[in-house]
């Protein structure tokens, strides 16, 4: 068996059935082995697309996502996807071809030091120097990607090692695919946490992406049902608390709800669960929940006391630590106050004029789509509207580039999600700027008949940047006018993708229904006013209660 065949065999033994990639010189032996392998390979049309597809696959399925690229430019094209996976703790294994061992270090054709380049955007990276090391390298990569705080791992395999013959085999799957976590819950911290929770008068549960990644959604829901503590969510945490939970206040932070931000600013105890006090969440850090004590549940010791000093840290598996600290509370006045805010500050969908109001359209889509739908987004205003106005049954049903905010994420991530969940509806909500960043992946939809539905919110602008120019840069609209966009429906047609463009409110219902009912990929272009803005907005370096709700 060759190193390339062995590589695929080990991947297969670990339950990998689909990979995303792009061939080239230094990874040709691996592609030659793919030709006969039962592993399904999806050819993306840019390695960045392959990396984002692996991220989408991993996040939607909770399995490891695998992407492949050749050396040099193929490998460098993966970097943005790896950075996204690093920031959002996504278990991805990237395998890159490298020039032959004898050529390494000689500035050979398509040689790039991908190990050096990937240091800052991977949890771990290895270069295989001996064919016998392939099984261990891959087994360790998968296990590292999936354990503790998950993240991307890169394996660089020189071409000669891919062709080398070997007798070794894999040890077979170790502990299967699935998040594993070290358990180190400490009795003292548990008691302290319970005391703080039962003494608090105004506690808030601050729910992050870590809950879903720890597979602890039901534990979190049980915790909040027992304690009835009002909760808020980060972008990555959306779908964790049930959207109809009595005391759920919505997303917090820069584009959070008024109810969520006010509650957090006033709380006397903040219970952070799998969240990391990101600057988009906290606003001005010094003034974030400044009267609150903090309990921090996390799997990553390095997140504790990183941005905010905490009173109690509970490190380890949320599946263990959440039930261990669940207590009842006596906070009726605070609950009523939060309920009042939920009602008083509920979203309003009435909107004057004929033009389409994106929040209302997205909210309608949310009502029409099946509960099991996966929604991905790109980055910008449409992303924030999706987070605000759509509801998700589970966190793995909402995939957005959180930590990096990488435009170009939406379409390839939707492709990965659809490959991992072929029977569920997958919708990519995109913007006319972001869509063009990985538009070549329409060819991937066409090639495999992947039935992703694209909702393109078209304001003919780089909307989020334009909004900031309007508010913070004296309406100096530098390089954000995209009114020369291509004809998107015609573009979709060129890839055999059905589409239509809508411009008025009356068209919305029928268009959404047609899209959802369509058997195959679909592009719905939604024209909106170029001056529509996302509200509320916490200005940079302001405290979260200082939300703007209109252009002054």
């Amino acid at each position, binding site marked *: 068996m060759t190193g390339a065949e062995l590589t695929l065999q080990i991947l297969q033994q670990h339950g990998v059935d689909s990979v995303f990639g792009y061939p080239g010189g230094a990874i040709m032996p691996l592609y030659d082995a793919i030709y006969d392998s039962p592993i399904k390979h999806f050819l993306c049309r840019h390695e960045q697309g392959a990396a984002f597809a692996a991220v989408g696959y991993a996040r939607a399925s909770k399995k490891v996502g695998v992407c492949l690229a050749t050396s040099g430019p193929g490998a460098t094209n993966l970097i943005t996807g790896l950075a996204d996976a690093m920031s959002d703790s996504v278990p991805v294994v990237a395998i890159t071809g490298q020039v032959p061992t004898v050529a390494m270090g000689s500035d050979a054709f398509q040689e790039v030091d991908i*190990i*050096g380049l990937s*240091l*800052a955007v991977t*949890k*771990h*990276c*290895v*270069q295989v120097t001996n064919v016998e090391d392939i099984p261990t390298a891959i087994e360790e990569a998968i296990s*590292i990607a999936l354990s503790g*705080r998950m993240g991307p791992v890169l394996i660089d395999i020189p071409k000669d090692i891919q062709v080398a013959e070997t007798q070794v085999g894999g040890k077979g799957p170790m502990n299967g695919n699935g998040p594993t976590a070290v358990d180190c819950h400490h009795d003292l911290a548990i008691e302290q946490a319970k005391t703080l929770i039962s003494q608090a008068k105004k506690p808030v549960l601050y729910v992050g992406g870590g809950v879903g990644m720890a597979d602890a959604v039901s534990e979190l829901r049980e915790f909040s049902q027992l304690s009835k503590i009002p909760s808020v969510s980060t972008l990555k945490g959306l779908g964790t608390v049930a959207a109809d939970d009595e005391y759920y206040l919505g997303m917090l932070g820069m584009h959070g709800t008024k109810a969520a931000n006010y509650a957090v600013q006033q709380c006397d105890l903040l219970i952070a669960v799998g969240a990391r006090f990101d600057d988009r969440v906290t606003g001005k850090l010094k003034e974030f929940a400044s009267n609150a004590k903090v309990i921090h549940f996390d799997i*990553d*010791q*390095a997140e*504790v*006391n*990183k941005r905010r000093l905490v009173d109690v840290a509970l490190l380890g598996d949320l599946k263990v630590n959440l039930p261990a600290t669940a207590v009842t509370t006596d906070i009726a006045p605070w609950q009523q106050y939060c309920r009042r805010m939920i009602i008083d500050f509920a979203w309003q969908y009435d909107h004057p004029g004929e033009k389409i109001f994106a929040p209302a359209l997205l909210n309608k889509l949310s009502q029409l789509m099946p509960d099991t739908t996966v929604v991905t987004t790109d980055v910008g205003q449409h992303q924030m509207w999706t987070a605000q106005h759509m509801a998700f049954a589970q966190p793995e049903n909402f995939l957005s580039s959180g930590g990096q905010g990488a435009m170009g994420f939406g379409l390839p991530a939707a492709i990965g999600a659809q490959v991992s969940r072929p029977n569920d509806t997958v919708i990519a909500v995109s913007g006319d700027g972001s869509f063009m960043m990985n538009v070549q992946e329409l060819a991937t939809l066409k090639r495999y008949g992947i039935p992703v539905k694209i909702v393109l919110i078209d304001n003919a602008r780089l909307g989020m940047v334009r909004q900031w120019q309007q508010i913070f840069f004296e309406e100096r609209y530098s390089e954000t006018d995209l009114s020369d966009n291509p004809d998107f429906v015609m573009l979709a047609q060129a890839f055999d993708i059905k589409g239509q463009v809508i411009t008025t409110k009356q068209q919305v219902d029928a268009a959404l229904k047609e899209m959802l009912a369509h058997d195959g990929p679909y592009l719905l272009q939604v024209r909106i006013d170029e001056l529509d803005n996302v509200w509320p907005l916490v200005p940079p370096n302001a405290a979260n209660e200082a939300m703007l709700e209109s252009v002054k």
Partner: protein
Amino acid sequence: MQQHNLTITAKHQPVVLERLLQVTRYRGFNVVGMTMFPVSELEQLTIELSVVSDKSVDNLKNQLLKIIDIEQIKVEDQALQKFMA
């Protein structure tokens, strides 16, 4: 600015030194001294690293401990000596 001396035990893997320096720089620490030597028949390394920063050395230690091939870190401040993990 405070100086901290870290004694780090790591697996002797090719990338570990670069990762160590990359994380140290990224987290806001300047390296002012470094010695390393192999132990236990080349399978392990001991790295003595002196860094300065006004940031928390505990946070640096926690970030460095996430490097897969780093096994143990002992931190000493200039004045008092603390032993950790």
